[in-house]
C-alpha cells in the first residue's frame, strides 16, 4: 500500500516536477524583480511626496495612496481574473507563467511600496534634520541617510513580499499559471495523490524558511 503511494508519487514527480519548478521560478523571477524596482520607487514616492522637507505634493501623494489602497483591497484571486484582459493585451496569452506574472507584479509592487513607505517613516526625523542642516541636497540625503537608515526595514519588507509571492504564485498557478502550487492542486487535491501534496508542502516550507533566513541575515548585517 505505502509502496504503491510512493511509486505513484515518484512517477508523477518524474513527469511534472521539473516543469513545475521552472514555472514557479519564472513567476517568482518576473514578479519579484519587477516589484523590487517599482515597489521601491513607489514607496519612496509615497514618502517623499508626503514630506515637507522633500517634494511635498499632497495631491500626487493622495492619488498614489488611493490607487495602492484600491489594489490592495481586491482579493488576489479576483485581481487575477480582473486583470485578464490587460494581461492578454500585454503578453498575448491568458495562461502560462508569464501571463500569471502580470497580477503578481501588481500585487507585490503595491504591497512592497507600503512596506517601504513604513520603513522610511520610521527613520528618525532628527537624523534627517541634521542631514538637511549640513546643506546636503535631496539626492544625497536619499542615498546616504534615508536608504541607509531604512535599509534593514526595507530588507525585511522585501523578504515578506517574496514569501507572500510564493503563496500568491501558487494561487496564480491554479488559474493557469502552472508551477508547484498547481501541481499540489491538480494531483494532491483533485486526484487524491497525498504524496504529491506532502511533497509540495515540504518544498514550499523549505523555500520560505530559506527566504526568511537570508532576509533576516541581511537585515541584521545592515543594522547597527
Amino acid at each position, binding site marked *: 500500500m505505502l509502496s504503491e503511494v510512493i511509486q505513484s508519487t515518484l512517477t508523477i514527480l518524474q513527469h511534472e516536477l521539473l516543469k513545475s519548478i521552472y514555472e514557479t521560478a519564472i513567476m517568482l523571477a518576473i514578479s519579484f524583480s519587477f516589484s523590487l524596482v517599482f515597489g521601491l520607487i513607489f514607496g519612496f514616492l509615497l514618502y517623499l511626496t508626503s514630506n515637507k522637507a522633500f517634494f511635498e505634493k499632497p495631491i500626487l501623494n493622495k492619488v498614489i495612496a488611493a490607487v495602492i489602497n484600491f489594489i490592495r483591497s481586491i482579493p488576489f484571486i479576483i485581481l487575477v481574473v480582473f486583470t485578464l484582459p490587460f494581461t492578454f493585451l500585454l503578453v498575448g496569452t491568458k495562461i502560462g507563467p508569464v501571463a500569471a506574472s502580470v497580477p503578481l507584479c501588481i500585487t507585490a509592487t503595491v504591497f512592497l511600496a507600503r512596506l517601504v513607505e513604513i520603513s522610511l517613516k520610521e527613520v528618525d526625523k532628527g537624523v534627517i*534634520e541634521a542631514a538637511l542642516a549640513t546643506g546636503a541636497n535631496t539626492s*544625497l540625503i536619499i542615498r546616504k541617510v534615508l536608504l541607509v537608515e531604512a535599509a534593514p526595514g526595507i530588507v525585511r519588507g522585501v523578504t515578506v513580499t517574496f514569501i507572500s509571492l510564493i503563496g500568491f504564485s501558487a494561487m496564480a498557478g491554479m488559474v493557469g499559471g502552472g508551477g508547484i502550487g498547481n501541481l499540489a492542486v491538480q494531483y494532491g487535491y483533485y486526484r487524491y495523490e497525498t504524496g504529491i501534496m506532502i511533497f509540495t508542502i515540504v518544498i514550499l516550507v523549505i523555500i520560505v524558511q530559506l527566504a526568511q533566513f537570508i532576509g533576516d541575515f541581511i537585515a541584521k548585517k545592515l543594522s547597527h
Partner: protein
Amino acid sequence: MIRFEDTTVSFIRDGKDFIAVDKVNLEIKKGEFFGIVGSSGAGKSTLVRTVNLLQKPTSGKVFVDGKDVTDLTGNDLSALRLKIGMIFQHFNLVKNATVFDNVAFALKASNTPKAEIEGRVLELLDLVGLKDRAHVYPNSLSGGQKQRVAIARALANNPEILLCDEATSALDPDNTKEVVQTLKNIKSKYPITVLFITHQMEVAKSLFDRVAVMSQGKVVEVNSCYDVFAHPESQAARNLINKSFEGVIPKEVIEHEQNLYLITFKEENAYDPVISYVSRNYPLVDLSIIAGNIEYIQQKPLGRLLISLRGTDEGDINSALEYLKQKAFVHKFDREVIANA
C-alpha cells in the same frame, strides 16, 4: 553676524494660531559665544532653527552676515547651510553608518573632491579626539563621544556659525564636561560664532559671553553672562537661577523659612562686611545663612548667599532689607519655583 528682526514663528495648534516665537529682535556679534536660556517651551529651539531655515519665520526677517536669508531656497539655501554647522540634543547621527561616514557626509554635501575627503575626516576626528574610533558605529560610543562626532560633522565645512540646541542636555555631568571642553577648545582655535541653547545654568556660566533669556516666545533680557547671573532683571531669569539651587538645599529647609532672599554681591562691595553690619545694627532681626557660594563667571567672582530674615518687627526687617539692597543685589527667593521644579 546673526540678526533677528521682528522674527516671529507661529504654528497652528488645535485649530488656533500659537505663537512660539514672538517678534524677536536680537543681534549676535561675530565671534561671540552667545547663549539662549529659558524654560521648556519658551521658543528657544524654534528661534535658533530659523537661522538655517529648518524653520521658516512666519513674519519678520533673519540676517546672516548682513544678508537677508529669510526667503532663500534651493542652491542658495544649501550654500547658507554649508556655512552654518548645527548640533542637537540627541546627536542625530546616522546610526547605520560609521563615524567616518557620518563626518564624510557633510563633506559630500559640499561636493568636496573625493581625494580630499579621507584626510579631512581624519583631521576633524582628531580635533574632537576620536581619530581611533573612525570605523566604529555610533551605537558603540558614549553620549559624549557621539556628540563629539556630531561636532566634527558640524565643523566639516569650516562654518562661520555653530548652532547648538541643548547639545549637553542629554549627557551626564562627566560627558557634559567633555563636550563643553571640546567646544571651548574649538572656540579657542577658530573664530567661529556660537549660538548655544541650554537650560543648564552650569553650562551657561562656563561658556557664554552674552545671554538672551527667553520666556513665552519673547526675549525678555539680553546681557553679559556675568550680569545676568549677578542681577537678573526678568522674572524668567530669576526663576532659572533659583532653580539652579534646586537639589542643593533640602526642600524641608526651604519650606520652613518665610523670608528667603538671594543676595548677590556687587563687585565693588564684594568685601564689605555686610552681614555683620546687619546683625549689629538690627538686633531684632535674625539673619541666618542657608547657603552660599562664590563662583567665577567670565573670570569674575560672583558671591551669593541665600539668607533668611526672621523677626517680630516688620519695620526692622524692611529696613535691614533696604540696607542690604544698597550693598548688594537682593531678590526674594521664590519658593514656588522650587516647589514646582
